[in-house]
């Protein structure tokens, strides 16, 4: 067990899996010589060579499509979108080809697309997004959104070993800010198993990614204010997502906030809220509340971006409103 940053944990997972499995290779823009825009793959090309750590042309479509082709030929490609925002350029290859391949003809596409995502540092409309919602709507793609260093490593290992296309969202704001214990060795984390970030009895917050920490701050304030006990469920993966864990938590607390950094309408929170309404109506003591970014692009200037991103204060206000029921 060692204390590592979220970024180190991803890097360790990739390196260990590349050492273990010769089929794994990396491809992306500036990932080789330079080690990637965020240095997740620093030193990789020296260790694994240019054939397994490929500096590619600026071509998200070609990178993603080539990964699919190589995967069909027995490789385990991991590609990096320099920022998750640029996955829009690879949308067609993911949704049209990779996602539908196994359903159509039964041949698996074990690719991983790494997606540095999220806001909080004035990245503006094109370097801050959380585009997981688009892909959660598409059958055939798996989606991971780790929040902790242990999960960052555990989920990258599982993502690479999964026989399906996996979108792995790594939140940029967590890269160096979040440190935590990462167990040594082969610590793959199963997809579709939520984690109880903190136990509580009065209200549940269902969330994932960086919003786990926003929820934590709000929960702390609520506890200090009047002893409200908040349970935080970190989904870890949103395709598949852990319905049982969510419904169990709601059954226990009977009040729920669904929280994410993605925009509101048709965001993944809508799916969670609808499922709770369908399956746990009888146990609810208050309406299901969604707290999300508004339906706008991500603004650039610090005060505007702060107004856009869900803040601990927003979540605390939500907790107070639900407490009134």
């Amino acid at each position, binding site marked *: 067990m060692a204390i590592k940053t979220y970024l180190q944990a991803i890097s360790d997972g990739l390196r260990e899996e590349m050492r273990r499995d010769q089929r794994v290779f990396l491809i992306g823009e500036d990932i080789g010589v330079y080690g990637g825009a965020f240095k997740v793959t620093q030193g990789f090309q020296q260790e694994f060579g240019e054939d397994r750590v490929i500096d590619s042309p600026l071509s998200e479509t*070609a990178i*993603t499509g080539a990964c*699919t082709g*190589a995967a*069909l030929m027995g490789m385990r490609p991991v590609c990096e979108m320099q920022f998750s925002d640029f996955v829009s350029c690879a949308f067609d290859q993911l949704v049209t080809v990779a996602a539908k*391949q196994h359903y*159509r003809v039964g041949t698996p596409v074990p690719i991983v697309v790494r997606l540095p995502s999220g806001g909080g540092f004035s990245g503006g409309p094109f370097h801050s997004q959380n585009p997981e919602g688009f892909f959660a709507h598409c059958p055939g793609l798996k989606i991971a959104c780790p929040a902790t260093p242990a999960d960052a490593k555990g989920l990258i290992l599982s993502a690479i070993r999964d026989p399906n296309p996996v979108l792995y969202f790594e939140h940029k704001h967590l890269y160096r800010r979040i440190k935590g214990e990462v167990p040594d060795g082969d610590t793959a984390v199963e997809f579709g198993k939520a984690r109880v970030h903190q136990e509580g009895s009065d209200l549940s917050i269902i969330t994932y990614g960086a919003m786990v920490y926003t929820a934590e701050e709000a929960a702390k304030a609520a506890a200090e204010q009047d002893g409200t006990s908040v349970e935080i469920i970190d989904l870890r993966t949103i395709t598949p997502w852990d319905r049982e864990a969510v419904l169990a938590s709601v059954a226990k607390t009977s009040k729920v906030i669904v929280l994410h950094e993605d925009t509101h309408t048709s965001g993944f929170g809508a799916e969670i809220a609808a499922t709770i309404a369908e399956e746990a109506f009888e146990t609810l003591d208050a309406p299901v509340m969604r707290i999300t970014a508004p339906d706008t692009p991500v603004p650039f200037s610090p005060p505007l971006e702060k107004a856009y991103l869900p803040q601990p204060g927003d979540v605390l206000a939500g907790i107070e409103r639900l407490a009134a029921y």
Partner: protein
Amino acid sequence: MSTPARNISAVPEPAPAPRISDEEALNLYYWMVLTRATEERALNLYRQGKLPGSYYTGRGQEAISVGMAAPLRRGADGDWLSPWIRDLGSYLVHGVPVWRMFAQFMGKAGSTTRGKDGNLHIGGYEWNIPCQVSHMADMIPLTVGAALAYKQRGEDRVAVTSFGDGATSRGDFHEGLNIAAVLEVPAVFVAENNRWAYTTPISKQTKVTDLYKKALGYGIPAIEVDGNDVLAVYSAMSEAVAHCRAGRGPRFIECKTYRMAGHAAHDKYESYMPMELLAEWSDKDPLKRLEQALREERTIDEAKLEGIRTKVKDEVHEAVERADDDGFADPSEAHLGVFAEADTDA
């Protein structure tokens, strides 16, 4: 005789026009006759309302579909082939049984996609055919990736894909060619310039109507061939594949041809296609031309050709019967297979 491939790029040395034996030429003839007979039969079935969905033929383009696939290695460990919708012949040559083509068109359980996808969206590991999607040019980046895997593992395999002139206007074509050149992968790109993309003539598709020039712009050695001459396509393809196997990077072949029917069976092409042009190209029919070359230049006995045609007739008849007798997949299968099960060898 075959028209020698014109070599435009400065990069490779001129193609040493390989001598095609009578046996090889007759083999190509068999595949071309089988291709046309299969398509004609399927078209009849479609018109009788026996095939769901829509139906596309590659009539007039059989020289390309057959000539492109014939030089390749078949089987699971063979060469990757991702043909375009006009290339029914490619599927046959690369190993897909005729009855499964009909099962595919009918959506039967014996279709390679168990009825989950239709027409020439055919694939499977056993033939190393990935299963094309409708979206044009999407298979180009995939083909680059397959070739990349071969290169990374030091295998002398080749990845091949074909596409229409319309596809060359899409981003996947340009990104795919560019990255193939940069990564120096063993891929062969076959453009089928039939001068139409649905109702759009080549003049409205691009200012660079010689498509091979686009590939040259990306640094890929490229040639154009007479796409209605199967011996020319076969020679050009053989040479390109040999270059790839030798580790000399990608190749591009433009086959000049003409679309001899509507875009799909339901398309009223008389409304936009000049009929004179169609008549002119009908004289260049690839099957007629090959027959002529076999009879006149190679003095092959007519009885031998007739024997091939009879054999094909029987084969197609049996294939349709078998597909007819096949059932549909159970409706519960509509819900299955979105995700692959966990990999046991991980």
